[in-house]
């Protein structure tokens, strides 16, 4: 399968196989009017299988969302058909309005205007807890 090169845009590489669609949705790529390619289960010498997303435009990416869903992703910024910048993603210490707290006793369930903020409390096991009620993110 051949997907053409992009001139100015972003390539999200090394996405864990199967997480491409989640990233597509969480990054709001469905709302873009430019060309976007989601490649599932591409062959990878390092990972066996991986997903790749190509975006035919340089946009502001929510790197926290990216790091929360799949911290192994590489972000490649393409300018004039060449790699202008490569960025590895860290696990974010804090994520805002990416997921919602599921604890029915949490203040965020009754006060809709509050931001849903989760804080990384255990980096090793990637555990996030709600800033307000400390419930574990699910």
């Amino acid at each position, binding site marked *: 399968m051949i997907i053409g090169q992009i001139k100015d845009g972003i390539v999200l590489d090394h996405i864990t196989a199967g997480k491409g669609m989640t990233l597509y949705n969480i990054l709001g790529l469905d709302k873009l009017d430019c060309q976007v390619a989601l490649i599932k289960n591409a062959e990878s010498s390092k990972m066996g299988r991986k997903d790749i997303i190509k975006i035919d435009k340089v946009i502001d990416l929510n790197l926290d969302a990216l790091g929360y869903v799949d911290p192994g992703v590489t972000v490649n910024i393409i300018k004039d058909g060449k790699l202008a910048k490569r960025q590895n993603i860290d696990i974010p210490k804090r994520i805002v309005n990416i997921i919602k707290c599921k*604890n029915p*006793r*949490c*203040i*965020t*369930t*009754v*006060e809709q*205007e*509050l931001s849903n903020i989760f804080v990384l409390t255990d980096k090793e096991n990637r555990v996030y807890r*709600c*800033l*307000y*009620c*400390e*419930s*574990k993110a699910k």
Partner: protein
Amino acid sequence: MRSLIDIRELSVDEIDELVRVANDIIDNPAKYSEKCKGKILATLFFEPSTRTRLSFESAMLSLGGNVIGFSDSQNSSASKGESVADTTKIVSGYADIIAMRHPKEGAPLVASLNTDIPVINAGDGGHNHPTQTLTDLLTINREKGGFDNLTIGLCGDLKFGRTVHSLISAMSRYKNVKFILISPDELKIPDYIKQTELEAKNLKYVETTSLDDVINELDILYMTRVQRERFFNEQDYIRLRDSYILTPKKLESAKDDLIVMHPLPRVNEISVAVDDDPRACYFKQARYGKFIRMALIMKLLEVK
């Protein structure tokens, strides 16, 4: 201005200092009677609580300050749909410090993020209740002479019991403290508390379903109430309500210098006949709550 939302925000030194001041208040109340003259405490209680609210109000009045507030969300603008943030901003113009109880977890944190005056969490759902923990610590300090080398039995609802979680967190910072966790299987302590407060700190603890088997080992027996409001299912509440009831007979095999604590109110988990036992400390504990709150109000208002 600093707030107190979670007991973990206080260092061991700060807790020791609060306990020292509270002890001095008990010994020399007159010295403190005008420390907060001209200051106003707002008690914003979105959920009823007799003891906590009255002890906060009594604490501020005993410091020479004044009190405003409400004791039920039906009597506040929350019943009209006002947010916690807005209520806090308004009240901040009328008071110097806020004590807030709210049925939703995290509400006092939201308040503290929306004001320049100190906010004290007076209980947020099943989450935190730091001034109850401070009360417990003052009680332990006065009745046991310190915090080290104690075996603490926590009995009853260890799943939803916020006072238990906070007490474990606070006591886990002292030397050679052992916890015995006594509860039915359905109300066992959550795994994350075990992992973060006990296992991560290499603390000794035992889980058991039998109070009788362990009561003779305890220096402190902390009883808790199985609370109806923490259950979504009435049948579960009724089934577990009577799991552990402390009676004079059960106390026969306990140490002579055991202290029995309870955050109160009790329903039936401590038989009234235990009240006359010199080891029963829970009414004293409730009295101590006022003095530690006085010390806390002074600290947060930076009154010397």
